[in-house]
């Protein structure tokens, strides 16, 4: 292994293997130094290993953690090959991020779905690369990373990027720009000068102590940390203006408001398809609209698929769930317009964009749909300039607080969005945290 393999990393090596590199004990007491957890399983002869981070390969008391300090061995030569233009609001956030980088601070960007947050990052990434800083963009969700990778690569064509996540086998290379799932950060140690965490609220990052530890360990002591979210968790919201500064971007890039969530009461839809739902689907089919139907459980997918196929035999559709081996292909069929509608669990709540769709949520009162999940689902609608609006219909058997809270969250964001939209002064386009 070359030295650069160890730069800013923490590599597990058996104690029997000698090394000239920096060696750290894998455990202090029973606390794993890779993931920070106290969750051990015994091995024979008083040895033990960490259960919490075993998906990245085992760390045991028979191992050392080996690393070399990050030397920032980069040329600094880079080019922003993205040709687009930022809106005034995006530009304002982007300027704030440049300051965050130079001050090595932590900052949250709270941008509604469809605000174009990736584009807002380009200037700060560009600046960091130019200054020979090491940059990572990470997300708790593999889907987000997979979707992000080609866009980032297209914006920085000349920069070598390594993409790291559990479902792929790309070999680790020492690169200035790293795209990875949050888990992968456990393998880094004080590597990054700029660390960007996308969709920070999404499962499984929210509330996961191990992944918070990973982020903390992977960034340098003196570094900038940027969090991105459309739906911050309550914990995060509580920190706003206190320990955390934030930029709030309540308007989508195309300057239209978010589609609001309409709630419809129905009878037990699992028993028989409610007339209202059937009627609505019929209408969408006649209008030749593409739409998603969100369902609470994997087991709900096939029965509804069969029912609808019987009613609308000439219309092509499909269903998809997390463990579906055809997952990517089915999403692609939807994107290519080969099918008119797709039934799905919450897995498509974020990360995936279909331009001009409508959305139905059947059983929106089920516990799998959190307030933020419903807001994210609503955020799938109205993403294109040509059709910046659309339907978001939540069918429930009982009105519950969560559905109302989601409705309210969207309305609040739209109120703020309206305020931004109709104010002419550019400095009030984005609400900085002290005004929240």
């Amino acid at each position, binding site marked *: 292994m070359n030295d650069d393999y160890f730069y800013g990393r923490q590599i597990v090596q058996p104690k*029997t293997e000698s090394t000239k590199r920096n060696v750290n004990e894998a455990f202090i007491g029973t606390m794993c130094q890779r993931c920070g957890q106290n969750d051990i399983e015994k091995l024979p002869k008083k040895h033990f290993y960490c259960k919490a981070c075993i998906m990245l390969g*085992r760390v045991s008391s028979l191992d050392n953690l080996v690393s070399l300090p990050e030397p920032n061995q980069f040329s600094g030569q880079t080019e922003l090959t993205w040709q687009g233009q930022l809106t005034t609001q995006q530009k304002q956030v982007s300027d704030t991020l440049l300051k965050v980088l130079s001050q090595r601070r932590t900052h949250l960007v709270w941008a509604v779905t469809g605000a174009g947050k990736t584009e807002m990052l380009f200037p700060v990434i560009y600046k960091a690369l130019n200054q020979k800083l090491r940059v990572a963009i990470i997300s708790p969700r593999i889907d987000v990373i997979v979707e992000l990778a080609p866009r980032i690569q297209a914006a920085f064509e000349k920069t070598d990027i390594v993409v790291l996540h559990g479902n792929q086998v790309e070999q680790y290379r020492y690169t200035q720009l790293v795209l990875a799932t949050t888990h992968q950060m456990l393998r880094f140690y004080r590597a990054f000068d700029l660390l960007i965490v996308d969709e920070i609220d999404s499962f499984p990052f929210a509330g996961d102590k191990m992944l918070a530890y990973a982020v903390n360990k992977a960034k340098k002591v003196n570094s900038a940390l940027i969090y991105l979210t459309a739906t911050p968790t309550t914990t995060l919201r509580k920190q706003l203006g206190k320990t955390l500064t934030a930029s709030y971007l309540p308007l989508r890039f195309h300057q239209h408001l978010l589609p609001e969530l309409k709630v419809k009461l129905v009878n037990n839809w699992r028993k028989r398809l409610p007339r209202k739902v059937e009627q609505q689907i019929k209408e969408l089919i006649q209008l030749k609209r593409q739409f998603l139907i969100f369902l609470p459980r994997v087991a709900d997918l096939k029965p509804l698929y069969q029912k609808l196929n019987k009613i609308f035999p000439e219309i092509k559709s499909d269903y998809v769930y997390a463990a579906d081996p055809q997952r990517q292909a089915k999403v692609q069929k939807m994107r290519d317009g080969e099918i008119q509608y797709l039934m799905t669990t919450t897995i498509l709540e974020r990360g995936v964009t279909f331009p001009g769709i409508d959305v139905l949520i059947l059983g929106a009162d089920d516990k799998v749909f959190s307030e933020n999940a419903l807001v994210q689902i609503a955020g799938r609608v109205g993403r294109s300039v040509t059709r910046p609006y659309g339907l978001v219909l939540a069918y429930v058997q009982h009105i519950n607080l969560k559905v109302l809270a989601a409705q309210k969250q969207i309305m609040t964001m739209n109120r703020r969005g309206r305020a931004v939209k109709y104010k002419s002064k550019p400095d009030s386009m984005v609400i900085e945290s002290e005004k929240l």
Partner: protein
Amino acid sequence: MICALCRTELFEVDSFLQFFGLVKTEGKELCYSCQSGFEIIGSDCCPDCGRQQVNRQKCYDCQRWQYQQKPSLHHRALYKYNDAMRSFMQQYKFTGDYMLRKIFNRQLIQLVHNTNMDLVVPIPVSQYTMRTRGFNQVTGMLEGIQLTNALQVISVKKRQQSNLNRNDRMKRKQLFDIQDSTLIIGKSILLVDDVYTTGSTLHCAAELLISCGAVSVKSVSLAR
């Protein structure tokens, strides 16, 4: 809660659980798709090596062992060494997730108890493996029963040295040695390994045990 093998959230596949009931094995939760991947070997198998077959005749490989005048091990295995078993082994043995020893613990002990023998002897792992993996995968799965660690792996270094001293072909091929043969003299022995692949490891151990005074040697494994 997550599946002990594939680590998918059982939360995500809980529709499966609704359908089929939560699959529980020895206090380790497996998701339905992992559980259903393992294929039990039925009674139609090779009488010598336990390989799954359509009949109970001696398989081609075992005819060759017989031709080389190796005694039959009357080997029995619980499962086919298919993709699911391979990925189990990958995680248990090579990743070193010692916790997984519990998944087949009870079934393997049952198989051992169904065999007539005096001593249960596990196939050993090398010193190097003990220092890196930290456990013997066979003894792990047999936790809870009395084992006789009669065999040791001859270190590569030692094997090379002994070749310099004596040009003994038998010795060079031998992977194991026995420190204390009084343990096994006059005993019928059941050898246990994790996987039976070519059979050469088990035949090698059996040959040594017999030459050191064991009266008979049979063998079992988790997979074949």
